[in-house]
C-alpha cells in the first residue's frame, strides 16, 4: 500500500517521458497520456489521503533500504493537503487547457508533467538531499515553462529566473551542508532528533539561509524580483500552476524544515519577529507593487507576493507555540488552500480576458467586461474573494490570520492586513472600472473566443472561492488535521520511533 507514495512521483514522470515520445506521434496521443497522468495522480493522492486519514501518516522506504542509507518517503496530514492542492491544480490545468486551447505546444505538456513530478517529489521527500534534487528539477521545469513561448521577453524572464534559481539553489546547498555537518544525518526525522545537540549558531545560520533560498522560490519581498517577469512571460495556465500549487509546495518546504526538522521556533523563539517583519513588508510592498502595474499578469504576480506575506503573518503566530500557535496554524493552512483556489481562478479567468483583449496590458481591458461577461464576472468574484470581502473564502482566512496575529503580536499586523485590503481593492476596482468602460468592440474572430466549456470551468472555480467561506465545514476535518501537524514542533520526531516499522 505504501508504494503509492512513490507513484505520485512516477506517474507524472512517466507521463513526461511517454509524452516526449508521443508528441512525435500525434497531439491526440499526447493528450491521452497527459489525461491519464492527471487521473492517475489524482487517484494516488486520494488513496494517500484515505490512508493518512486512517493511520495518521505514511512511510515508504525505497527498495526496503532503511535510513540512514536508504531513501525515505513520508506523508502526513500536512503533506496530504499540499498534495491535494497540487493534484487539484494539475487536474484543473488539464481540463482547462483541453477545453480552451485547440492546439498546444507539446513541450508545454512535458514540462508541466515534469513540474508536477518534481513538486510531488518535494512534498513526499523524507530527507533533505532528495528535497534538494527535486527542487532543482522543479526549477528546470519552471524555467522551461517561463521561456518556452519563444519571445524575447520570455527568454529574458527565463534567464532572470535562472539566475535567481541559481542563488536559491546555492543557499539551499549551503544549508544542507551545514545541517549535515551539525547533525550527521539528512533524513528530516533524524535531523529533528539530533538538532538539540547541534550548535545553536548553526541552526540560526541555516534558518536564515533557508528563508533566503525559499523566499526566492515563493517570491517573498525582497526576494520577489524574478516573479512578475516570469508570470508575465509564462502562459496563464502555467502561471496558475506555479502560483497556485508551486508556491504552496515551497511554503510547505519552509514549514517542514524550519518548524519541524530544525525546530527553529523552539531554539530561537524570536524568529517570530523576523517572520512578522518579512510578512508585513511583503503585504505592503506586494500590494503597492500590484497597484503600480500596468499589466494584468504582473498585477496578479505581485498580489501573490502580498499573499505570501499573509501566510507569513500566520506562521509568525505559529512560532509563538501553545494555543496561539495551534489556532494560527489553522489560519495558515486555510489561507494556503484558499489562495491556491483564488489565484488559479484569477489566472484562468484572466486568460479569457487577455485572449479577448489580445493583450495583457490593463489599459487594453477597456470594455472587456461587456465582451467577455462570464470570464470577467468570474475574475471579479475571485478578486473580491482575494481582497477578502465577507462572506467569501478569502475573508474567512484573512479574518483568522488577523485574529491569530493579533493574539501573537497586537494590533500592528491587523493594521497591515487592513491596509492591504484597501490597496488591493483599489487595483481590482481599476480592473473593474476598465472592464466596464465602454470601448469600441472589435469584431470577434474564433481565436479570441474562449470556449464555453472552459468558461464554465472557470465559473465553477469562481463560485468555489465564494462559497468556501460558507461551506467550509466539509473540508474542515482535513484542514484541522493538517493544522495540528503544522503547529506540533515534534511532528517528525515520531517518525523514527513509531513509523519506521
Amino acid at each position, binding site marked *: 500500500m505504501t508504494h503509492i507514495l512513490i507513484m505520485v512521483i512516477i506517474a507524472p514522470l512517466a507521463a513526461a517521458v511517454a509524452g516526449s515520445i508521443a508528441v512525435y506521434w500525434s497531439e491526440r496521443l499526447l493528450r491521452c497520456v497527459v489525461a491519464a497522468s492527471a487521473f492517475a495522480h489524482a487517484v494516488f493522492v486520494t488513496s494517500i489521503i484515505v490512508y493518512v486519514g486512517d493511520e495518521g501518516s505514511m512511510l515508504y522506504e525505497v527498495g526496503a533500504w532503511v535510513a540512514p542509507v536508504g531513501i525515505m518517503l513520508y506523508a502526513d496530514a500536512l503533506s496530504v493537503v499540499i498534495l491535494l492542492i497540487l493534484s487539484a491544480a494539475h487536474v484543473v490545468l488539464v481540463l482547462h487547457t483541453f477545453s480552451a486551447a485547440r492546439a498546444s505546444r507539446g513541450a508545454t505538456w512535458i514540462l508541466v508533467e515534469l513540474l508536477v513530478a518534481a513538486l510531488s517529489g518535494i512534498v513526499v521527500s523524507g530527507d533533505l538531499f532528495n528535497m534538494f534534487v527535486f527542487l532543482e528539477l522543479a526549477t528546470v521545469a519552471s524555467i522551461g515553462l517561463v521561456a518556452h513561448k519563444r519571445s524575447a521577453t520570455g527568454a529574458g524572464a527565463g534567464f532572470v529566473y535562472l539566475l535567481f534559481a541559481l542563488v536559491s539553489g546555492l543557499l539551499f546547498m549551503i544549508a544542507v551542508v551545514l545541517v549535515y555537518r551539525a547533525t550527521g544525518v539528512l533524513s528530516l526525522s533524524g535531523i529533528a532528533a539530533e538538532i538539540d545537540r547541534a550548535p545553536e549558531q548553526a541552526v540560526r545560520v541555516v534558518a536564515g*539561509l533557508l528563508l533566503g533560498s525559499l523566499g526566492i522560490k515563493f517570491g517573498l519581498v525582497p*526576494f520577489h524580483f524574478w516573479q512578475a517577469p516570469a508570470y508575465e512571460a509564462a502562459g496563464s495556465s502555467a502561471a496558475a500552476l506555479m502560483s497556485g500549487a508551486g508556491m504552496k509546495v515551497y511554503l510547505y518546504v519552509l514549514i517542514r524544515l524550519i518548524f519541524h526538522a530544525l525546530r527553529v521556533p523552539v531554539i530561537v523563539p524570536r524568529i517570530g519577529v523576523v517572520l512578522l517583519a518579512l510578512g508585513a513588508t511583503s503585504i505592503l510592498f506586494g500590494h503597492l507593487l500590484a497597484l503600480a502595474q500596468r499589466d494584468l499578469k504582473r498585477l496578479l504576480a505581485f498580489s501573490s507576493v502580498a499573499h505570501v506575506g499573509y501566510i507569513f503573518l500566520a506562521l509568525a503566530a505559529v512560532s509563538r507555540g501553545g494555543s496561539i500557535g495551534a489556532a494560527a496554524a489553522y489560519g495558515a493552512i486555510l489561507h494556503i488552500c484558499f489562495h491556491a483556489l483564488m489565484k488559479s481562478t484569477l489566472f484562468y479567468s484572466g486568460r479569457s480576458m487577455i485572449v479577448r483583449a489580445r493583450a495583457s496590458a490593463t489599459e487594453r481591458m477597456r470594455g472587456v467586461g461587456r465582451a467577455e461577461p462570464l470570464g470577467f464576472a468570474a475574475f471579479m468574484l475571485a478578486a473580491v474573494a482575494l481582497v477578502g470581502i465577507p462572506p467569501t473564502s478569502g475573508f474567512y482566512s484573512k479574518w483568522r490570520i488577523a485574529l491569530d496575529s493579533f493574539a501573537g503580536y497586537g494590533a500592528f499586523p491587523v493594521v497591515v492586513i487592513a491596509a492591504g485590503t484597501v490597496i488591493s481593492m483599489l487595483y481590482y476596482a481599476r480592473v473593474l472600472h476598465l472592464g466596464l468602460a465602454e470601448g469600441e468592440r472589435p469584431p470577434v474572430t474564433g481565436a479570441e473566443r474562449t470556449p464555453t466549456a472552459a468558461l464554465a470551468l472557470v465559473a465553477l472555480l469562481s463560485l468555489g472561492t465564494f462559497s468556501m467561506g460558507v461551506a467550509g465545514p466539509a473540508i474542515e476535518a482535513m484542514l484541522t488535521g493538517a493544522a495540528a501537524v503544522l503547529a506540533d514542533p515534534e511532528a517528525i520526531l515520531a517518525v523514527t520511533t513509531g513509523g519506521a516499522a
Partner: protein
Amino acid sequence: MIPFSLAVPVGLELTLLTVFVMIGGFGVSLALSARDLGLAGATALHSLAGVLSLLARDLIILLISWELLAFSAFWLIRRVSVPRRLLVSDALPDTGGQAGGSRDAAARASFWYIGGQICAAALFFVAITVHVGTGGSLEVAPLASAAQPAMALGVFIKTAMMPLHGWLVGSYTRAGALAGFVLSAFATKVGVYTAARTLAVSLFSLPIVSVVGALVAVVAVIFALSQHSARRLLSFHIISQVAYMLVGVGLAGSATSATSAVGIDAGIFHAINHIIYKALLFLVAAVAIDYFGHDDLDRMGGLARHMPLVFVCGVVGALAITGVPGFSGYASKELLKKASGGLLSTLLTVASVGTALSFSKFIYLIFLRPRPRVDGNRPSVGRVPAFVLVVLAGLSVAIGLSPHRVPGAPMHDYYAVSSVLAGVWPAMLGIGLWVVSGRWLMRIRGAVDPQPMLRRMLAGFAKAALPPLRRAHATDAQLALGITITAAIAITSVLVFL
C-alpha cells in the same frame, strides 16, 4: 464557518427598517418608470444591503452589509441615467445642458466612492478583530474600549464627517439624478446605526463623537451656503444632518446612561425623518434638474408657476429639514437638543439657522426667482414621481404633527411652548437673513473645499511613488540580484544576533 444570525429589530429600528424598505420600493418604481432596469437592480441591491444592516445580529453580517452597500453604490453611481425621464412631455425644450452628467466623471466618482468605503470597512475590520481578540463576542453590541478608536474612525468615514466627505460629495453630485435619491438614504444612515449599536467612546471625558458631530453640523452648513449646484448643496446638508445624528448617538460615550439612551433614540429618530425629507428634497432637485437640463442653481427659477405640486413638496421638505414646528425635522431636532444640552445644543441651533438660510436660497432660486417665460410645450412631472413626492411630503407633515405616534419614538412633550419657540426662532432668523443678505450670499462662490486637497494628496503620492516602483521592477536584473543576495545575508545575520 461564518455564523449567520439575523433578527427583525423592534421599536424605532423597526420603523427605520420600514423606511428603508419604503425608499427602496420608491427608488425601484421610479427607476422602472424611467425604464432603466439596471438602475432598478442596483437600487434593489442597495436597499437590501441597508435592510440587512438592520437585521444583522452579528458584526460579520454588519460588515457584509457595509461592503454590499459600497458595491451596489458603485454600480448605482455608474448608471448615469438618461436625463428627463421624470417628466412627461410631447416635446421638451432644448436647453443644451447635460443633466445626467458625464459617464466618465461618474465612473471616476464611483472609484473614489469605493476607495472611501473600503477604508471604512477596513477600519471596521480592525475594530472587530481587536474586539474579538480581546475576548469580545461577535454579537452586535458596544465594542471593547481598545477597539473603539478604529471603529469611530470607520464610522466617521462612513458618515462622511468632514474632512473625510470627499467620496460623498463627489459621487452624489455626479451620479444620475435618480441615483442621488437612493444614495442619500442608505450609506450614511447605516454608519449612524452602526455607531449607535457599537460605539461608546469618550476622550478627556467628552463624548468625542458628539463633539465632532456638532462641529461638522455647523461647518458643513457653511460649506452648503456657498454652493451653486442643487445636488452639491443637498450633499453638504446630508453631511450636516448626519452630524446631528452623530451628536445623538455619540452621547453613549458620556457619563450618564440616561442621556445616552435618549441620545441614541433621538439620533435614530432623526435618521428616520432625515431619510424621508432628504429623499423628498433630492427628488425635487432631480425634477428641477430634468426640467432645466442642468444642475446650476444660478440658471434656474420660476418653477413654482409650472409645477405647483413640486413647489409645495419642496417647501415641505425645506421646512422639515430646517426643523420648523409641525414638520418632521422639528421633533427629532428638539429631542437631540434636549439630550445633548449645553454647548452642543448651541452649536446645533447655529446649524439650524444656517440650514434655514440655505434652504431659503434653495427654494427661492429654483421656484420663486422671476425667470423669462419659456414658450412652447412645457413638461409636467410624471405620475410616479408625483406620487412619491406627495407620500414623502405627507409623511414629513404627519410625523411633524404627531411625533409620538411614530412606532418606537421616545416619549417627550414635543409641543411645550418653550420648545416650539426654540424651533421657530432659528428658522425665522434664517429666512430673515436670507431676505436681508440674499443678494450678497448668492454672489459667494468658490469657497474652499478641503476634499479635493486630500484627493490631490493621494493622487500625488500615487504619481510620485508608484512609477518608480514599477520601473525598479521592469529592468535591471543585476540590481535585483544584488538586493536579493544582500537581503539573504542580512536576514541570516539578524537571525544570528537575535
